[in-house]
């Protein structure tokens, strides 16, 4: 078995093993992040929010249940690398390992992930690169180059992941609303949840003009999850502002962050973010505390939110803003993932809240929708 290295920006190296099938090792750079979910590796790898990130799974054994196309969250694998302690050694055909290899994603196993996670949690999530090398020096040199190349790309990662064309999907609820979706790199399950509850969905690229959306006459606007720094997202804040106070606006994750920017608030980079399926949320909108699925590296600074926007959701681990609601502007931002995949389902009720309660306040159309 051949050795490979994860080299962090500060030069620290973590050794690991390459898969035998990856003779021509696909060396890649990205932000190094960790996720504490026990399962759901396939959903994670296909979630566009993980664009340009190297994924470290804290759960030690990956690939146990193989690979299943139906749990993909988009039509490709977005991660820059997959790091874990051990991969299922199965030769079964639909193995997760084979899928990563086929998609040219570098896989690194036998890594001291515990030590790596402690490093990431105490020093923040750095950039890094996975490379094959005979010595550490060689690895560091290779990594430096890869990292600087990767950093060359456009800062608006949302734009890089967003659809470039409008897409229409028919909803399954003829009595439901027409929802415009501003695509920041949407997970499939947000769309699935909408399909169940809506009559019609139209998905717009992230830099779509407000007028184009308005011409479609949506009943409401959905802002999806997506990767990167919300402050770098171009045009979307203005687009959103055009609808605020007119139709219901619901933002998830990146959508929530960009919504906050549209409201005039600020976002900041967290030390190592939240990625996992066990984050406790106090939800004052639903009057519940529940576990949530999380994946974000930025957060909304609650001091900068306008006074008529109420922080209605808190992450109970660190009291960061997990969601806000404005009755006046009829908008809701949720930092975590009510669409789950992977993770617990409790927060899915927020989609109901969006469809039932928020559309009742829809002054423009004064229409009521039912599920």
């Amino acid at each position, binding site marked *: 078995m051949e050795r490979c290295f994860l080299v962090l920006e500060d030069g620290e190296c973590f050794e690991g093993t390459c898969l035998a099938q990856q003779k021509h090792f696909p060396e890649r750079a990205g932000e190094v992040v960790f996720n504490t979910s026990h399962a759901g590796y396939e959903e994670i790898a296909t979630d566009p929010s993980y664009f340009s990130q190297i994924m470290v799974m*804290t759960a030690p054994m990956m690939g146990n249940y193989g690979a299943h196309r139906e749990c993909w969250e988009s039509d490709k694998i977005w991660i820059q690398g997959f790091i874990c302690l051990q991969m299922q050694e199965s030769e079964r055909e639909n193995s997760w390992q084979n899928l990563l290899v086929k998609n040219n994603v570098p896989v690194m196993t036998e890594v001291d992930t515990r030590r790596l996670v402690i490093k990431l949690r105490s020093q923040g999530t750095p950039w890094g690169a996975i490379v094959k090398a005979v010595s550490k020096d060689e690895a560091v040199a290779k990594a430096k180059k890869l990292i600087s190349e990767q950093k060359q790309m456009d800062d608006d990662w949302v734009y890089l992941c967003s659809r470039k064309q409008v897409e229409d999907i028919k909803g399954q609820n003829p009595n439901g609303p027409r929802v415009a979706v501003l695509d920041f790199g949407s997970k499939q399950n947000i769309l699935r949840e909408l399909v169940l509850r809506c009559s019609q969905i139209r998905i717009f690229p992230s830099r779509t003009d407000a007028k184009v959306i308005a011409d479609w006459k949506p009943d409401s606007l959905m802002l999806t999850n997506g990767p990167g720094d919300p402050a770098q997202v171009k045009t979307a804040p203005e687009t959103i502002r055009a609808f605020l106070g007119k139709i219901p606006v619901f933002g998830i994750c990146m959508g929530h962050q960009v919504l906050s920017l549209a409201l005039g608030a600020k976002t900041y980079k967290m030390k190592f973010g939240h990625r996992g399926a066990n984050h406790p949320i106090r939800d004052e909108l639903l009057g519940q505390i529940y576990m949530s699925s999380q994946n974000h590296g930025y957060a909304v600074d609650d001091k900068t939110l306008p006074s008529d926007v109420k922080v209605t959701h808190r992450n109970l681990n660190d009291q960061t803003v997990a969601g806000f609601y404005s009755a006046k502007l009829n908008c809701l931002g949720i930092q975590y993932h009510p669409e789950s995949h992977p993770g617990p389902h409790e927060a899915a009720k927020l989609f109901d809240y969006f469809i039932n309660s928020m559309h009742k306040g829809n002054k423009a159309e004064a229409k009521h929708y039912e599920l």
Partner: protein
Amino acid sequence: MPRMNDLKKILIIGSGPIQIGQACEFDYSGTQACKALMKEGYEVILVNSNPATIMTDPEIATRTYIEPLKFDYLKKIIEIEKPEAVIPTLGGQTALNLALELDKRGVLRDNNVRMLGATPSVIEAAEDREKFRTILDELGARYPQSEMVKSYDQGIVAAERLGYPLILRPNYTLGGGGGGIAYTPQEYQTMLAQALHESPTSEVLVEASILGWKEFELEVMRDASGTFVVVCSIENFDPCGVHTGDSITVAPQQTLTDSEYQAMRDEACRIINRVGVQTGGANVQFAVHPLTGERVVIEMNPRVSRSSALASKATGFPIAKIAALLAVGYRLDELKNDITKVTPTCYEPALDYVVTKIPKFAFEKFQGSKDLLTTQMKSVGEVMAIGRTFQESMMKALASLEVNQEGVPDIHFNLQKISYPNSQRIWHIFQALRHGISIEQINDLTKIHPWFLEQLKSIVDFESKIKSSDLDENLLLQAKRKGFTDARIAKLKNRTQEEVSKIRRDLNIRPSYLQVDTCAGEFASSTPYFYSTYWSQIPIAGSTKPVVAVIGSGPNRIGQGIEFDYSCVRGVKALQKLGYAVAMLNSNPETVSTDYDTSDYLFFEPLTAESLTEVFTCIKPEGFIAQLGGQTPINLAADLQKNGFKLLGSTMETLDQAEDRKLFSQICRDLNLRIPQSAMAGSITEALKHESTVGYPMICRPSYVIGGRRMEVIENKQELQSYFMRHMDFIGESNPCLMDQFLSGALEVDVDLIRGKNWMMIGGIVEHIEAAGVHSGDSMGVVPPQRLKPETQEKIETLSCALADRMKILGHLNLQLAIKNDEIFVLEANPRSSRSVPFLAKATQIPLVDLGIKAQMGMEITQKEKEEYNWRSLKKICVKGVVFPFKKFADSDSILGPEMKSTGETMGRSDTYSDALVKAFASSYLNLPASGEVFLSLRDKDKEPMLPLLNNLKKLGYKFSATRGTAEFLNGVNIDCQQLNKVHEGRPHCVDRIRSGQISFVINTTQGRQSLEASFDIRRACTDYSIPCLTESDAAEAFVMALEKSKTGRIEVSALL
């Protein structure tokens, strides 16, 4: 909602004696809950009949009642204490059933006692299978096809509809008691009758088989506001068909996709809510079809359980403690995560390791009972191991079982042993893989998920690699990461273990100790709960205080159980009081000692010389304590000392003197102490040479055994020959058979004492109720002695002290003595804490373990302590009762002998001997029938001596029946006795009469193997139908004394002071 302030006094019901299916996990949960509630400022009233527990230590609760867990006693305690609330969910099925009874019979209402944690309607909704099914229907949850059967005839019809094999699940029993799997109509008919009898409501769920489905369990918590968390998901290695307590299990679940898992999680949440669990811990079991993914619900328990103890240890989430706090009103978000200290308790632990639990069995102790696992639990204990990967975790768990240092030794290949679930199956799977049997074939035979089998195969494949490669750094590191012990590597390389260990250490291949932190490293944690792994390199913070290590007792087994955990926990606390940081080492997830807040460092590790040496190398203790964990640490002491660590207290030489029969006999001779005639023999030829010196009857046993394994009373040459034949695998030149003169009819006592450098403290003398010949663990006992003369007691004390001085004991000494015609014989000396230590400590209130620690640390005791602690000044009479698992082992014999078979003990505590007896029997679930027919089957030599007893029974109004010999004898002495047929004399015979419920209890004494075999059916019938069966005349006497007392109907209770 915060803490309930209108509550002041809370009653907690414990789970009673250790039984299969309900063991020391409830001491762990109860202790945790008591401590949490005490800390909150509540008055906690605890009732438990089990003196071997930590929870019954007086400082755990405000007031502790060691009283029978029976309605009448609980009623009395409630009337005296007037608690405002009772928490019934912490003491297993026993507490739950008892609380229900107290509610139904109006005691709770009359005394204004609230039930916290679970209400009667919740308990019924979950426990009553029919009600539970209605709920599942309403929720659209699926469950196996089944029918609730309330009569035998209904059962027969149901079976025809459902088809075989069938699973029988009696309502309201613990550990699946009385249930099982029936493959044929014949099996089914027998089992159905039994199951109907076992269920307190005479209801049995007859279920179509889901054998071979994957089995899962979710441990969940809910608070009053509806916040729901899954603490841990558990996947069974053994598919459906094996009781989850008997299955190898793994946490977290490994083979479900996220969507499958989340669907299961959602369903668990809906069930908990619909059943109406307001607050606390619960578990829900599921089965999933391996191919279609179809999911069914098996059952739920609205209380903390064995698996919640496991889940707590596996994740660091203290379920019982949190359940207690939720019961008094707190919400999950109001409580802090104990481990991280920064995040709230409403979270689901993230694990970056794999936990494996393997049950420990005792089939070898129950001859006649087939080693077959079914839906009725049979294991007596369990080990847990943590590793970074499944392989590391599984291999550590196998090493933790203390069966073989190699963990996965080569065994005789037998494919048949794979085709049905049994206690040895895991090793047979390894062996089959070594023989090239394919995963497909093993999967076909076992239905074990291929993922698990692939993992095992990769371990076996690596064995070949070890064999064929050099022991270099890379190979050794890989091997250690797969969990191979040094001993196994040595075997594969044909080297010694010492050589392999040395090579490994020279290459600096050492484990690291990772924290169990509930969050996979996401947050910093300061809780010192560790497991070893070769997958990581992270140093642990050292201690500023000097460290002492306490070695635990490993998995519970018959002969070494909770009593030793009591000693360990007390010992840890005593050492902490003396200013030490204490490292606790143990592999048993059910215990208080493996609670992370018991010690300063908890290492969840196999108790092997290799693992302990590595831990000690890392934490550098001043020394280690080997006297508290039973025989396990004693057996490890020599290796650890050899590896450079200091044994505290009695030296290795002292330990050897006690273990080595020759040395010990010499000491006794020097001190003029009598010992039974004895000899050693490595073969039958040799044994026959010593036949006349030792004389018959004699006791034979192999050297170095726990709980008298393979110990038998031998009455003649024929039996001696048979003994050597049957046990030839365990006897040889290097481990000879010990042959001891058997002191027939002698009175036996246990003495426990502590010796310091220049002080001595007698803990007490426990007088056995049964005569010599019954293992001390199986014998009932009483303190203070009722039959010993005061001068004999004096003599015993003097003799014990002399022996302790001579052996240079520092710490504990337990002696077993026999007294015959006022002469004292020394039978056995154990230089360690013993089974009787917690019993004596509770009875006499002398903190024996604390004093033992002082002695082991070379300290003095004060004059005040010397005066204060005097076992003779004890105010109550305390009787030890015993609980046996015969019912769980079909076809096993309930006769008592020198090999220990009991699983647990109770204490009856009262002002009079007879009342203490009544309580001890009641606590041990032996009915005291107020009237009815006594069946007698007596050996000749007991007939005459037992006449006064029988006359007494006659006076009390009991009727008699017996087979011809005894009947004729009784009728001849003017006692009416109905004559019954012996079994071979044709039906209806005496066993028919027992099985038809016409007999209240049985006195059956036997002599010799033959009469033993002839009367087996009598005893077995009693076991099956829960009819008291006294097999020893002294025990019968005690029983009759208790019967007489219980007829007065007076119930008195008192708290420990």
